[in-house]
């Protein structure tokens, strides 16, 4: 069956009181952007629902796949439309629809009619039983079960007739752009793209920063991060990616600070740079893929020690998740295969065999004093040579 019309259901936005229209506007805009390349579409809002109507030929499976990436949508119903407002026409359409969608599989069904258009002469209860009856006669493979049907055939009587029976699950969440903007520290690993996805799902717009350390990290490692950002942008919309050359800072830390503190000090400087970039680009928070206790730099003590260098809130969406849970999400959103490409990132190149796991901020600050000569210059240079790439799927 070819579908031209899609009923889009959203849940959470419906509860947002007076802001609801703001959310709906953003959602409609997001939907338009997502399907823009798939054909001509019109969007209609009606009684707390959105109808997406293809105005040109389109591949409806592509449309559904794209709608499943739009945050804020909980369900997508591909619907068939009957323009003749007559009982016989509805019956015919219902029979054709059930036969085409379900063939002659043995199924139980129930008809559920909503008569929004009260000018239509037959009431919904009556329509339910009459159409059910017509279906039973036409399709010997169908039986009625009003309590737990295999197929719930929904019929809506509006200015035309809508029929649908399946709801395809949407991504959920809130439309991107309804909850401010945050800067994601993107490393190239499994966790940070998942973190970006999760927060974007709550309506937050994303920018990202990657710390590049040539010649220790390769051009391919950088390309991998660009690729990951592009994959996340399939959900979040365009991402501005800031690429910071971190080599000199890293080498200064290597030469002047205790080796077992290298990672934690490095991360503190990353946070400082990230905070600076965030503020310059109107991002209200930082975001990382850390999961507590996963590695030495992600113990409670390390997280506290890293956080103290800045003032912006740091959001850690994966913080309570096990590695496997994060992997599951990365597989679902399609970033896993890219994340596991074996290129070194700047966190691993000089990592100590036994890094500190319980850093004490006072001690770390004292170690950092070894850097006092020159570090400001290095920071300024890193910040003034940032490469910016605007990444988008479309």
């Amino acid at each position, binding site marked *: 069956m070819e579908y031209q019309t899609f009923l889009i259901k959203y849940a959470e936005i419906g509860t947002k009181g007076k802001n609801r229209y703001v959310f709906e506007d953003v959602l409609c805009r997001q939907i338009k952007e997502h399907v823009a390349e798939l054909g001509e579409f019109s969007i209609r809002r009606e009684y707390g629902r959105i109808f997406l109507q293809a105005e040109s030929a389109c591949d409806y499976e592509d449309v559904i796949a794209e709608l499943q990436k739009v945050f804020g949508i909980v369900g997508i119903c591909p619907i068939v439309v009957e323009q003749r407002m007559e009982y016989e026409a509805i019956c015919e359409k219902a029979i054709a629809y059930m036969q085409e969608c379900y063939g002659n599989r043995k199924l139980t069904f129930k008809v559920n009619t909503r008569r929004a258009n009260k000018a239509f002469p037959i009431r919904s209860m009556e329509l339910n039983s009459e159409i059910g009856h017509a279906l039973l006669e036409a399709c010997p493979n169908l039986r009625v079960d009003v309590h737990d049907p295999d197929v719930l055939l929904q019929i809506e009587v509006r200015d035309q007739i809508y029929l649908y029976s399946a709801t395809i699950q949407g991504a959920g969440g809130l439309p991107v752009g309804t909850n401010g903007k945050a800067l994601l520290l993107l490393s190239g690993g499994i966790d940070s793209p998942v973190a970006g996805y999760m927060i974007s799902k709550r309506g937050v717009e994303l920018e990202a920063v990657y710390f590049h350390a*040539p*010649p*220790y*990290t*390769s*051009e391919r490692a950088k390309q991998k991060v660009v690729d990951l950002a592009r994959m996340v942008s399939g959900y979040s919309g365009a991402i501005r990616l800031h690429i910071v050359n971190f080599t000199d800072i890293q*080498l200064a830390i*290597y*030469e002047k600070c205790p*080796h077992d503190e290298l990672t934690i000090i490095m991360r503190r400087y990353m946070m400082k740079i990230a905070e600076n970039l965030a503020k310059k680009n109107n991002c209200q928070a930082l975001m990382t893929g850390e999961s507590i206790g996963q590695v030495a730099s992600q113990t409670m003590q390390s997280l506290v020690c890293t956080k103290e260098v800045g003032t912006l809130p740091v959001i850690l969406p994966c913080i309570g998740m096990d590695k496997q849970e994060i992997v599951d999400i990365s597989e679902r959103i399609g970033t896993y295969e890219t994340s596991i490409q*074996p290129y*070194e990132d700047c966190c691993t*190149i*000089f*990592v*100590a*065999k036994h890094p500190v796991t319980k850093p004490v901020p006072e001690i770390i600050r004292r170690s950092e004093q070894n850097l006092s000569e020159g570090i400001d210059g290095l920071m300024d240079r890193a910040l003034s040579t940032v490469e910016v790439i605007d990444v988008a799927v479309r």
Partner: protein
Amino acid sequence: MEVYFDNAATTRILPEVREIMLETMDEEYGNPSSMHQKGVGAERYIRYARDVISRQLKCEPKEICFTSGGTEANNLALIGIALANKRAGNHIITTGIEHASVYNPLLYLQELGFRISFLNVDRGGKVDLEHLRELLCKDTILVSVMAVNNEIGAVEPIEEIAKMVKEYREEILFHVDAVQAFGKQILYPKRIGVDAMSVSGHKLHGPKGSGALFVGSQVKIKPILYGGGQEKGLRSGTENTTAIAGMGKACEILYPHLTENCERMNRVKETLIRGAVQIEGVENHSGEAPHIASLSFRGVRSEVLLHALEERGVYVSAGSACSSNHPAVSGVLKAIGLEADRLESTLRFSFCETNTTEEVEYTVRALEELVPMLRRFTRK
């Protein structure tokens, strides 16, 4: 300054090669099998390339089978010969330093029930002939040895191996992967007892996707691709006229200058080695091939040095470029017995006839600066 020292990975296409390739795209774009004029026109390019290559290998034109490159030529030779001769025996001998496109088809044949033996090599990567004598047996049907190793440039004693194999039993077939030797060494397979030999176009300023297998006319071999019966049934599929024409043109231009080109490359290579070994902790593992230098830099990871050189415009590779997607330690370097710290610090510099001694001097200066600097920052 841009210095391309990765010519064993691939080379730049010659302008004349590009020209002839464009002709086959713009004008003679017909299917060489078509009966009309357009088909005949395209076929002419293929015949010409076949003639050029067969003259250079001193074989019959009909003994050249065009393929999609060295990998396919190796697959066709090994799988095709093994399957066609399995009634005569099931034993195949190769070396431990072959390219993946020889090694992996042999693993596949092992799954099919063939027995594969691997020849020992010495520290220079040279095949141990005594070991070969021990391994040859009544079941042996095929021996496959590369002419020049792609990672260290070791030159194998192909003639002696052929002699030993054929003396043991005339029917044993001998395949040579000559991808790195083609255009750098004079090899006349029929005169020295080689039954099949793989060559590639893009190591010789020809296009990627071009290659050929020489197969002696008496050799029993089965195709690995079945279809329309092109290339006398040995390699079905519409001929890649563009790639074949390009490869033919590259050979035609370069082969007459083989000796002088090799001398030039060898000078470049020797200058690089002489300069590099002055740096502390640098060791030379290069074989005799004129276009490949293999050097290790103690205490510096090859990947890091590679990218540092890249920042200065010098392009080289770590191990073999074909396997760089899997940054595992090189099997070749292991097989020649390099110590663990050398394995991770070896770079390959590979040349073509247009490389200059100025480029080498520039590279040596870069190495002199980079190696001590990178040594300061290593994983502790």
